C-alpha cells in the first residue's frame, strides 16, 4: 500500500474512525479556531476605531489589516484540514472564515490601492519611503492571501454542496 493511497483512499476512512486521530484533529481544530478568532479581533480593532474619512488613516488602517492575514490563514487551514474527518460544522466554519478572508482581502486591496496615491502625495521625506514599503507589503499580502482564501472558499463550498447531495 503506497503512502498516497493511505492519504486519499479507503484506509483513511478506517483511520479517521480511530479515536486518537479524531482527538488530534479536534485539538487542532480548536487551536485553529482560536487563531482565526484572534486574527479577527486584531482586524476588527484595527478598523473599527479608525477615522475612515481621512485618506491617510484609511490607508494605515487597511494596510495594518494585512499583518493579521497569516494568522487567519493558519486558522482556516487548520479548520479545513480538520474538517476532512470531523463534523459538518467544522467544514462550514472553515468555509465561512475563508469567504470572510477573501472578502477582507478584496476590500483591503481596493482601499489600499485607491488611497495609496493620495497618501504618497501628502507625505514627505522618510514618510514617503515608509508609505511605499507599507503599500508594497500590504498589497502583496492581500493578493497572495486573497488568492489562497478564494481557492479555499471555492473548494470548501464544493465540499459542503457535495456533502449535502450525498
Amino acid at each position, binding site marked *: *500500500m503506497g*503512502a498516497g493511497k*493511505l492519504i486519499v483512499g479507503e484506509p483513511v476512512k478506517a483511520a479517521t474512525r480511530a*479515536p*486518537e*486521530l479524531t*482527538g*488530534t484533529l*479536534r*485539538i*487542532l481544530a*480548536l*487551536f*485553529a*479556531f*482560536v*487563531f482565526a*478568532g*484572534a486574527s479577527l*479581533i*486584531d482586524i476588527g*480593532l*484595527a478598523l473599527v*476605531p*479608525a477615522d475612515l474619512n481621512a485618506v491617510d488613516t484609511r490607508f494605515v488602517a487597511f494596510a495594518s489589516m494585512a499583518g493579521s492575514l497569516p*494568522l487567519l490563514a*493558519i486558522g482556516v487551514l*487548520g479548520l479545513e484540514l480538520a474538517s476532512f474527518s470531523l463534523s459538518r460544522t467544522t467544514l462550514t466554519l472553515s468555509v465561512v472564515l475563508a469567504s470572510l478572508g477573501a472578502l477582507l482581502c478584496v476590500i483591503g486591496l481596493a482601499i489600499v490601492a485607491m488611497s495609496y496615491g493620495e497618501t504618497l502625495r501628502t507625505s514627505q521625506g522618510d514618510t514617503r519611503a515608509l508609505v511605499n514599503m507599507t503599500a508594497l507589503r500590504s498589497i502583496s499580502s492581500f493578493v497572495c492571501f486573497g488568492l489562497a482564501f478564494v481557492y479555499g472558499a471555492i473548494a470548501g463550498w464544493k465540499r459542503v454542496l457535495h456533502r449535502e447531495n450525498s
Partner: protein
Amino acid sequence: MVERSMTEGRRIVGAVGFAMLIVGLASQVATLTARRPSWGSTEWEVAYFGEFSATLVIVLMGLAVLSALAVQQRSRWPKVVLAVVLALLGSWAMLGALVVALDMPLVWQAARNAGSPARAAGLKIVTVKAIALCGWYALWLFVASGFMVKSTVTKSR
C-alpha cells in the same frame, strides 16, 4: 515503510512544535524582564499585557502541535503536563484581562489628556485589544486544557 515515515514525520513535527514553544516562551520571558515588573503601575500593566497578548500566538502554535502529537501518541504524561501548562497559561491570560480591565478608567482618563486624538485612540485600542485577546485566549486555553484532561481520563479507563 509507511510506519517509519510516520514516525519520522512525527519527530519533525514535534521538533518544530518544541522550537515554536521555546522561541515563544523566550520572547515572553524577554517581555516580562525587559522592564522591572511593577504591579499597580497602569503604564507597565497595559504595556506588558498588550505585548503578552500580541506575542502569545507563537507559544500557542507550539502548544497546538505538541498537544495534537500527545493525543495522537496516546501517551499519558505528556497530556497531563500539557493540560497543566495550558491551564497555567490560561490563568495568566485571564489575570491579564482582569488587570487591564481594572486599569481601563485610568487609561480613558489619560486618553482625554493625551493631546492629540490619534494618540488617545491609540491608547484606547491597545487597552481594548489587550483585554479582548487575553480574554479570548484564556477562554480557549481552559477549554483546551479540559480537552487534554478528558482525553487522559478516557484513555486510562
